[in-house]
């Protein structure tokens, strides 16, 4: 795999630590509200830069998910942008056979059965 950051390296110019454009609240808000959103974002960018799918493919899937939500007469869930992003990512990956919907579901259920506190560091 190529290193996807190569194309980004030029953007990592030194930044002012303060001021209106200071990260990470450069938009006046956190870029990601919950950690999983950043992982879903990162997966889509990483996979497209690695050529697993193209960005137009992902964009089409994202548009389809957003459009389906917007045209639904009854909304089961509130607007959640990264939920659509995640669904679109899975749509593309399942659609091209990279993963199957069943194995994603099975793995998700396995992760859900972990005991509480599984992700906290344990003293040795």
């Amino acid at each position, binding site marked *: 795999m190529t290193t996807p950051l190569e194309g980004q390296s030029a953007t990592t110019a030194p930044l002012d630590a303060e001021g209106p454009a200071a990260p990470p609240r*450069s938009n006046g808000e956190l870029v990601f509200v919950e950690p999983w959103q950043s992982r879903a974002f990162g997966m889509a960018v990483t996979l497209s830069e690695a050529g697993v799918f193209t960005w137009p493919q992902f964009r089409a899937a994202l548009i389809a998910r957003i459009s389906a939500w917007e045209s639904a007469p009854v909304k089961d869930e509130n*607007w959640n942008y990264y939920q659509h992003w995640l669904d679109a990512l899975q749509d593309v990956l399942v659609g091209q056979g990279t993963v199957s919907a069943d194995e994603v579901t099975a793995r998700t259920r396995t992760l859900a059965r972990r005991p509480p506190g599984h992700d906290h560091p344990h003293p040795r």
Partner: protein
Amino acid sequence: MTTGGPLPAALRTEALEQLLTERGLIDPKVMDGIITNYETNVGPLNGAKVVARAWTDPQYRRRLLEDGTAAIKELGFSGSQGEHIVVVENTATTHNVVVCTLCSCYPWPVLGLPPSWYKDPAYRARMVKEPRTVLSEMGLELADDVRITVRDSTSEVRWLVLPERPAGTEHLPEEQLVPLVTRDAMVGVAKVKAP
């Protein structure tokens, strides 16, 4: 979690990441680097530098309006979603404002990731239908004789607005202009104000 209920997004994301890592399709460390880059490095400051350069260097301004991607790359900014950046200029009589009606396309290398309101269904639907009203609600009152052009990211094009340089800043050097340029002005929902 209840069996058969909707699967929480956080767990489904983790499951996907595990499966893709096991297949060798993603390297979590590489992904960490990409995420950190967008969380901490790439943001509107990049675009502000582009705008300040264009305000102070007429030849750069011309190159920027002719080929946005190339001129932006001159300043070292490139990457995903920056492949086809088209820069449009706001003047006293012409106002451009950017929207992505279908999803959330945005020129990441110069503005970072879009804010919530840019992705919101209401902004995306209403800006094309009633831009003057939406801009007014966002605090930007435009005179009736100002022509508004809504730039919709319906193709691979990512739009960037070159805001009008505010009156009273003629004496300021480039580096003092940079902090005046806001994200909102480069999307076209605000004007740049003199200090």
